[in-house]
């Protein structure tokens, strides 16, 4: 490929920044569609996804893990998440890396030989099982996380975190951070786009690093001065150091039913997978 250092890093960084924006916009779109998980109370959703995550983590049994992955797929389907997208999103990233990382474990994990290969290599049975454990656990956990993200608008997710006893002050900061991530994303995007549009020739890596560091430094100064402006704005609106959130969630019978159903499944999985 003939794309070397040219201006690649700016495009790459721009692509990464845009990707984050794109991802959260996509999540917002899906979370507004009609579907099973979308209809649930966000607090119920957080608790049920967490209990499923825990059961994935606690289960010591491959068929149970496989069924939990099946459950994640089923939930995705019931929540009108395009399955091909869902599987790609989950498998193309983390489990793929995990597979690469876990590959040597097939051979170096001590245990009875399962398949003998040329060059004296041998896949051990324990190696195969442990790699399967890792892959299934990682892919199911990532699937569950993606389900939560895709079916919950971020404002609702943030408010629902209070059920985990996250202190209000911490939630306030979380919410502000999420909001300002987008402002800083756009700022950084503008900075890189304007820089990119003024670059004609090749950049030496050292020069590119210097420009990146300058962008980071500028972004830091902007963040700091913005923080004091935001503080003044908050003060002008009566902020005295306390925060309150409006909690408009209402538990309906369907929430109770789904919540207890999923927690029951999670507990069952833990029990079956001991």
């Amino acid at each position, binding site marked *: 490929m003939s794309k070397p250092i040219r201006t690649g890093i700016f495009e790459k960084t721009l692509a990464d920044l845009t990707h984050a924006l794109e991802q959260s916009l996509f999540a917002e779109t899906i979370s507004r569609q009609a579907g099973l998980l979308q209809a649930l109370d966000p607090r119920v959703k957080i608790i049920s996804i967490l209990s499923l995550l825990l059961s994935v983590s606690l289960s010591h049994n491959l068929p149970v893990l496989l069924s939990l992955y099946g459950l994640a797929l089923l939930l995705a389907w019931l929540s009108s998440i395009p399955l091909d997208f869902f599987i790609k999103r989950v498998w193309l990233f983390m489990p793929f890396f995990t597979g690469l990382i876990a590959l040597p474990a097939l051979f170096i994990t001590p245990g009875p030989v399962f398949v003998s290969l040329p060059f004296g290599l041998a896949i051990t049975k324990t190696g195969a099982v442990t790699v399967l454990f890792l892959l299934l656990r990682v892919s199911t956990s990532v699937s569950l996380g993606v389900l939560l993200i895709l079916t919950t608008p971020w404002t609702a997710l943030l408010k629902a975190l209070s059920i985990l006893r996250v202190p209000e002050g911490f939630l306030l*900061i979380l919410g502000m*951070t999420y909001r300002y991530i987008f402002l800083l994303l756009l700022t950084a995007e503008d900075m890189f786009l304007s820089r990119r549009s003024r670059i004609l020739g090749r950049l030496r890596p050292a020069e590119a690093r210097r420009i990146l560091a300058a962008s980071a430094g500028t972004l830091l100064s902007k963040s700091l001065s913005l923080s004091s402006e935001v503080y003044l704005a908050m003060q002008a609106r009566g902020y005295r150091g306390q925060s309150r959130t409006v909690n408009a969630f209402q538990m309906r019978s369907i929430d109770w039913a789904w919540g207890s159903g999923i927690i029951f499944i999670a507990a069952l999985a833990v029990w079956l997978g001991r």
Partner: protein
Amino acid sequence: MSFSSALQRVGTCVRSAPRGVRVYYAVLGLWLSTTAMHIPDGYLSPATCVVMFAAMIPFWYFGLKKLREKINARSAPLVALLAAFSFIIMMFNVPLPGGTTGHAVGGALIAIILGPEVAVIAVSIALIIQAFFFGDGGILAIGANCFNMAVVLPYVSYAVYQAIAGKHPVESARRTVGAFAGGYIGLTIAAFFAGIEFGIQPLLFHTADGTPLYSPYPFSVAIPAMVIPHMLLASIVEGLVTSLVIVYLQRTNHEILMISANPAIAGEAGHTARLRIFWVVLAVLIFLTPLGLLAPGTAWGEWGSNQLTRMGLSFVPQGIKQLEGLWGAPLAGYKFTSLGNANLGYIISAAVGVIVISVLTGLLVTVLTSGRPENRHDPTDPHS
């Protein structure tokens, strides 16, 4: 074929493996390390996750408390913006000599400019948002990820930076050097902790027949696999970004570099001199830990006791023999189960000891530094 002979064959095989294969894994390791070490769910057992989460609680508690005392109401937007900054900086592709690129965490930079307590909260929040809203890094593993990147990285970087830069003027070149060393050593130690967290899994959590249930690699693989690629790539990126931003700020925005000396702006009082010795000791200790643990790790393969004898040593010191068994067991033909008995306690206590000491040190530092009444109130804040 017996198990140990199979292993020995694998061992010889790895050593005599075609160069391409070894290069493949080296490159893979390097490449993975550029995506920083966000541990996903599934690699760590729930027990580890709970312990790491519990280890984070005092840091979060005292970090928030300190922010509230020193910067009052102003802390909310300040930390929020810094967390957002940390989130964005993780997306910057930094070119390295040789054409590859890597990402920085930004924890070292925030720690150096605003103090490690602010960095703990800001980076933690960035990591929590990544886990809950973007699916990067596990939700159950939040405690472990925060411990590595939001505690170890900022505190070590800050300590190293302070040890090198000390009270030298803002424009001093020592600050640049200190920033690079801080970022470099900070991230390397953080990777070392991640290696410990991975390496402890197969020891503690396996089925009755020894099948590892979570991350499968023992310390002898997990620690070098985390530390070496980081030393070659990600840590350089962290160091470069930190020092280059400091250089840029030295040229363009002095005030930011003075924040840590001006409590009215960000609450980082001038208490560093009093604690500097403490920081230096802490940094040295933390830095030496991986050396001590890694040395026997590299002994496997090249510096085994038989080689030592061959090299002219008439006897092998007891300690080396012991440690050799400790690290070499899973790979050098020892029975795997032997690892589970005598040496297990040693390994666990070493790892737990490192974690407990870091937690206690962090607490001690926070308690020592939070009781400075003259810095409690922000003079510019009308409500204080």
